[in-house]
């Protein structure tokens, strides 16, 4: 007997294909682990047991019929609750969509299921992805498996925590300003934000349409590579006109190593105010480790990077205001009963359906887009965006990949940050690649020497060079092997496979 949480996605798929265990057994192991661990974690808003078992049986029948199984056959998957999946609710962590069931499935979810994943659960998140701690969810907090007194990060906190606690093997998240990378870093798992346009956004409830990107969480870089193959393999999604073809095999160069490649250290971010000593130490340790594997270290500057947060908190709220306008209590979602007029119904439904942070961002966006104000903020933010994108382009002439922190610090305690602007500032390291659209990944790099909590480094690459990112991430992983697995307090709790 061994716990299924020790297995990688590739090992599970291989085991199912070889008949070592059935997909249904894996599904049950995952469900057992969830039952045992979930009371302490609360990573999920809904466990979609029937959907997972149904998919598992389908795969088992296919195997029995002698069919070739897909590459992720039997791998338990958690899906962030802003992604539509027929047969489940899509709440976005909001009272507004408490009972909302989508009549269609998001492309990213459909592709993972098509590749063999078992959709086990819908993961908790900050309301409509507004937040960096998962504390703004209407349905309660999610605990960090490394210390249940602490936040898992956000907004994809449920997805990261579920993978870190070993409840599932893979999870999908969405990243608008760091919502995959920061929780991945807090929870000690790998989290990739692919280049904008690489993964379809169709069926993912939009926050900032020009910033949002879907990506996978896993405990190993290889698992993330397998998930990327599933997400981009079938080609661009005709239902998302911003999606692009990305015809690469993410496993192909995974083990190539970094010899002869240039790694650019972004000192201004490593040394930025607010970056803790243990985070700095880990970034430099990772740089040395990559150097030891043959990479060349170069110093890289990213002018205008400090404008990212300002640009982000203009563009994000503007797009959010527009995207969330449809939630008016008329067709679906929370509807205030007993109103006399349409205006009253919309006003009260929105007042009660949205939480404080969702209101704050929409009000900010409504203001920033209003006539007379637009030119001063939105237009300026777009100009800043152009400059930041150019900064990256210059940096990537000197370096193949950039190295920087994923987050200025390790996971903080619940309620520790109550000032929204302080919370916004914690996105400093991640936001710029949403602004520029290029891919970036957070890879665990050991535990902090002061807090003992997971610390990660972030690697950023040029647009549509996400495979190169994974090669570097694998090199970091190799250097810190053994230190990133299921959080110790939960490893092996429930979920045994024969």
């Amino acid at each position, binding site marked *: 007997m061994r716990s299924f949480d020790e297995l990688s996605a590739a090992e599970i798929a291989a085991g199912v294909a070889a008949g070592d265990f059935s997909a249904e057994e894996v599904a049950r192991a995952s469900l057992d682990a969830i039952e045992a661990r979930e009371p302490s974690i609360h990573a999920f808003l809904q466990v979609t047991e029937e959907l997972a078992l149904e998919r598992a049986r389908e795969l088992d029948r296919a195997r029995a019929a002698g069919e070739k199984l897909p590459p992720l056959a039997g791998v338990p998957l958690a899906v962030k609750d*802003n*992604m*539509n999946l027929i047969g489940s609710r*899509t709440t*976005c962590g909001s009272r507004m*969509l408490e009972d*909302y069931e*989508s*009549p*269609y499935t*998001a492309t990213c979810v459909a592709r993972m299921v098509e590749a063999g994943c078992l959709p086990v659960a819908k993961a908790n998140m900050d309301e409509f992805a507004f937040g960096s701690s998962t504390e703004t969810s209407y349905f309660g907090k999610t605990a960090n498996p490394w210390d249940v007194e602490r936040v898992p990060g956000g907004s994809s906190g449920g997805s990261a925590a579920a993978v870190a606690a070993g409840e599932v093997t893979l999870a999908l998240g969405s990243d608008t300003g760091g919502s995959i990378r920061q929780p991945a870093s807090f929870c000690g798992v790998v989290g990739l934000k692919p280049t904008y346009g690489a993964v379809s*956004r*169709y*069926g*993912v*409830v*939009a926050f*900032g*349409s*020009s910033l949002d990107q879907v990506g996978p969480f896993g405990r190993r870089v290889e698992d993330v590579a397998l998930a990327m193959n599933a997400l981009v393999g079938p080609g661009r999604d*005709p*239902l*998302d*006109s*911003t999606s692009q073809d990305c015809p690469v095999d993410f496993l192909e160069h995974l083990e190539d190593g970094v010899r002869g490649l240039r790694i650019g250290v972004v000192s201004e971010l490593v040394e930025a105010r607010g970056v803790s000593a243990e985070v700095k130490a880990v970034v430099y340790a990772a740089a040395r480790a990559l150097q030891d594997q043959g990479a060349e270290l170069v110093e890289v500057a990213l002018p205008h990077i400090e404008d990212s947060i300002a640009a982000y908190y203009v563009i994000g709220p*503007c*797009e959010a*205001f*527009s995207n969330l*306008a*449809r*939630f*008016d209590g*008329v*067709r*679906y979602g929370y509807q205030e009963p007993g109103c006399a*007029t*349409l205006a009253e119904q*919309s006003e009260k439904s929105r007042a009660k359906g949205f939480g404080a942070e969702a209101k704050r961002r929409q009000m900010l966006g*409504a203001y920033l*887009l*209003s*006539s007379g104000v*637009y030119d001063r903020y*939105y237009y300026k933010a777009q100009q800043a965006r152009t400059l930041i994108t150019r900064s990256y382009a210059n940096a990537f002439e000197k370096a193949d990949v950039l190295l920087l922190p994923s987050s200025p610090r390790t996971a903080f305690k619940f309620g520790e940050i109550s000032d929204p602007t302080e919370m916004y500032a914690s996105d400093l390291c991640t936001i710029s690649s949403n602004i520029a659209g290029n891919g970036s990944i957070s890879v665990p790099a050991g535990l902090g020497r002061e807090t003992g909590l997971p610390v990660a480094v972030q690697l950023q690459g040029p647009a549509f060079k996400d495979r190169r990112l994974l090669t570097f991430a694998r090199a970091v992983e190799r250097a810190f092997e053994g230190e990133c697995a299921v959080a110790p307090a939960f490893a092996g709790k429930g979920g045994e496979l024969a």
Partner: protein
Amino acid sequence: MKTLSEVLRDWEAVIGLEVHTELTTLETKMFCGCRLSHEDDPNADVCPVCLGLPGALPVPNKEAIRSIVKAGLATDCEIQKRSMFYRKHYFYPDMAKNFQTTQGPVAFCMHGHLDLEIRGQGAAELPADAPEDRRASTPSSAMNAHGGTGALALDEDAAGEGLLTRTDDGYTVPIRILRIHMEEDAAKMTHLGGSEGRIGGAAESLIDYNRCGTPLIELVTEPDLRTPEEARLFMEKLRRVFLAIGISDCSLESGSMRCDGNVSLRRKGETTLGTKTELKNLNSFKSLHDGLEYEICRQAQVLEEGGVVLQETRHFEPARKRTVVMRVKETADDYRLFPDPDLAPFDLSDDFIESCRAELGELPDAKRDRFEATFNLKRADAEALAADPALASFFETAAGAAARGAVSVANVLLNVVLGQWRAAGEDAKSSSLTPAQVAGLADLVAEGAIVSAQAREVAAAMAETGESAEAIVDARGLRQETDDDALMAVVEQVLAACPDQAAQYRSGNTKVIGYLVGQCMRACNGTGNPKRFNELLRESLT
């Protein structure tokens, strides 16, 4: 209230139009694959995209882009290779996302024009002293007063040359088109239980999203129109152009083509614009004319009584021929327009634009000029025949089959056949007459073998029996005597029998010729051509 002509003696009316046209000839909606249909059950043609469900994303309909590019090319617009979609926000349940996807400052088509030829009665609406250069007195900076979407004017002299030019029976004038942009239509709402059919007093409001997301193009003119007749003719001509290029069924009745009018008055000679009102419910050519006429007269009365015109939206009531206030615009609406991040900017290729141009076919003006030159038709007749592509093609086929020239075919079509089609609810496409039959009939008229009164009878019989004109004329003994010697014998016989009338004619009472023609017709049992009798009588009496 003064009449229009009285008002226009002292005032100049400045009119701009906003015309919405649904691209009804497309198969699917603007941003999703849903069927475009006017007949399906409510909410049958919907999907996550046009219902604005969470997570759904728009994908532009390439055929709709082709249609708008064709509309722009057909109206001499500059096709903008780089343009994009914007989101226009307003909270109302007919727009599932609470924003409409439309275009911003740069539309697919900018700065075109349509040239009007105004003849006869309609031309008289414009005072003789009206200025020839309309652009000088309505510079593009006037856009904000008259523009439909608060768009920016980019280029001031793009409309090409063209001043008002007087002709023998009227005038010609170019009307500038500011832009044609692409947008999506809203859902249809039905309010039950209220007195006014509005959401305010309704007990229930029903929403049918079948129409939501229908591709719509909006054309905005510069404020270059000066009379209700010009506005009506502009709309008629635009409709003909859009029909010719096949982008819509252009039905004002069903609302697939609809028009709002912006109108303001200013004292003659003024160059600044007065406060405009916006007119709605102008859903026929007559309503467009009459609504503007009423509104011009109403504004004149307000101003002459020392009042001020309020910037408001007014509803035309055709039955009572008046406009009433719908809503007063105290402040400009703030639609929070910004580029739609879900739709990448367009970069139209030359090849794409040229392939659209190749599909345009012959436009009504070119067809009119060709008909006029090739078939020697009167310009007005050529224009009438060129107006409807099916009619034009019917005419050309018939003209090709006729032995005695196209002019007679044009006359028979316009004076006889069109009336018959109208009465039977037919048109050139559904006609029960063939072009060959019409050609045969036209030849008989040209020969003088029958007169036009008989042509109606023959046309009706042809439609009924499917026989040729000749067969019907012979079977019914309608053929007129065309031999001059035989006719002259009748004339001499009649003059001999009516010496008094002959004397009256000679002494200057030429009206009496009608009586003499009648006598000739009677004498030959109606087989002679009255026109020829008339000529022969005159010759004999001088």
